[in-house]
């Protein structure tokens, strides 16, 4: 518990479907220690993304408790410093170039100076996009966009990265490259990674593999 970066106990989440209440998560217990990489697999509709949203504090559970580094504070301000997020659909802001998209993570929590610009450029270089920092998302390929999203997730030096099927919109080889990059960068920086994926091979690369089944983690 002392080393736990994230602690979740008894997370329950239900959704209203017509006049029926559908239980997606039926009591998820999860404890993640710093520096781990965890994969969460499960069938479509098993609630993987819902669980990730709960862990990221983007949604509130119907019941259960969530703590980040021992604190129940999962506010937006704390999330910006504690978490980095990567999504299947990249979600880059189309009006901003790659560099500005990476910097946006920092702008939200404070001002931008030369140091921040330098770090964003360095991150883009690390993901192999040093030459494309001034390209708009529309001018980048899918793999390149996801690499920008990875750089953005790392911009604030978060303690943990939550990645929701980051290879879902990419071909196999590009997807593999992105996963290697994500795992490599997290390993280098000591950042904890929670990877939600369908892909068994990608899941196997993580230090711990979990399966979400019937609303519970196994």
């Amino acid at each position, binding site marked *: 518990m002392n080393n736990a970066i994230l602690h979740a106990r008894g997370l329950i989440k239900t959704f209203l479907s017509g006049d029926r209440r559908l239980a997606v998560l039926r009591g998820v217990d999860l404890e993640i220690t710093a520096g781990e990489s965890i994969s969460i697999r499960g069938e479509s509709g098993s609630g993987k993304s*819902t669980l990730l*949203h709960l862990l990221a504090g*983007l*949604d509130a559970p119907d019941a259960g408790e969530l703590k980040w580094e021992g604190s129940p504070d999962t506010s*937006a*301000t704390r999330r*910006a*410093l504690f978490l980095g997020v990567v999504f299947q659909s990249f979600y880059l802001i189309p*009006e901003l170039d790659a560099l500005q998209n990476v910097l946006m993570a920092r702008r939200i929590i404070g001002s931008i100076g030369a140091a921040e610009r330098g770090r964003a450029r360095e991150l883009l270089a690390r993901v192999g996009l040093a030459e494309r920092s001034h390209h708009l998302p529309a001018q980048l390929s899918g793999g390149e966009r996801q690499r920008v999203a990875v750089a*953005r997730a790392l911009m604030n030096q978060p303690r943990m990265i939550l990645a929701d099927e980051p290879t879902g919109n990419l071909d196999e080889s590009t997807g593999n490259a992105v996963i290697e990059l994500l795992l490599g960068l997290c390993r280098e920086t000591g950042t904890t990674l929670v990877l939600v994926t369908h892909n068994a091979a990608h899941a196997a690369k993580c230090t711990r593999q979990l399966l979400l089944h019937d609303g519970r983690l196994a």
Partner: protein
Amino acid sequence: MPWYLYLAFKQLFPTGRRFPFFTAISVVSVMLGVALLIVVLGVMGGFGYQIREMITDTEGEIQIKARGLISDYRNVVKRVEAVPGVAGATPYAAGMLMVQYQNKPAFPQMRGLDMTSIARVVPLGRFVRVGSLDDLDDDAVILSGGLADALGARLGAIVDIYTPLMLAKKDGAIILPRTARVVGILEIGHQQLDSSTLYCTLRLAQDLYGLDRDVHGINVRLQRGAREDEVAKRLNAVLPPEVQAFSWRDSFADFLWVLQLEKNMMMFVLLFVVLVAAFLTMSLLLVLVLKKTREIGLLGALGASRRQIALCFCLQGVGVGVVGTGLGLALGFTVLHFRNEFVRAITHLTGGQELLARFYQFSELPSHTETRDLVLIVVAALVLSTLAGIVPAVLAARLKPAEALRSE
């Protein structure tokens, strides 16, 4: 720069080759509304301003009148000129006459001018089109342009003048008219005054109306910057009780009220154009919020607060308002600058330039924008544009990040 301001600016004016269609449509709609307000209120204000100029140019800023006649006017003029703020005062006599030239009669208004003091108060010499004000003596008259045209009288013509006083002569006396030489033709630029006015010396007017040494009133010119209402008050404090000073605003209060009412109504109606532009901006921003639902979810995931997300969209409404208002002011003042060219072009195509001048009393389309109107237009446009941004902003702020990210 806060991120919401930065992103609002970037979404309004994206870099690269992307044409900001949303921005252009919204900005143009606000711009047209503001420009329309500037042009219409400028022209309406111009009419008011021109009328004020016409009144003060021909009668001074203050008129002094008595219930009957003003006797011992020299003493009254002396007292008036001693009051602070007064630049000069001139007595006048006025009334209706019949003028005849080569069997053509006309019934103009007579204005008897004191030639020793008129120049200090009324710049009539400026409006003399033919002849000279200096040639005006007790046997001469100056005709307004319309009157001269109606009579067919030119410079040097001898006209016969009949006054109501002549009707009082009974017992079979033959009524002999007073004859006078036309020494000038004058055009002020106001149709009503230019159509039928006869100017003569005060002595001739007193003679024609049997006033002896009395006058009908005194026109007062103020020093630059003096306020007519304040000076009128000061004058009333020193004038005899039977004589009263009225500012031009008092004298034309009803007319000015109607003019102001028309202007206010026009502003009220035209503000709806800006209101429609604000609704257009709001609907386009609502579309933008729906289009960017997932991005809003992402901003939440990156740590943006609801207030900041709301500000991001609200500021886009403000941005549209600021740019649209700025361009609207530029367009409005440009159109006002070239207004007479536009009018000439339109009347050239449709004919009737003279009719226009006759109907609207002015030969040129006037323009005068008051600071108060300008401030009101700018504030109204900015407030409405900001309000237009509030509804989409609230909608964006109410989106829950998880639901926004899940949206299709």
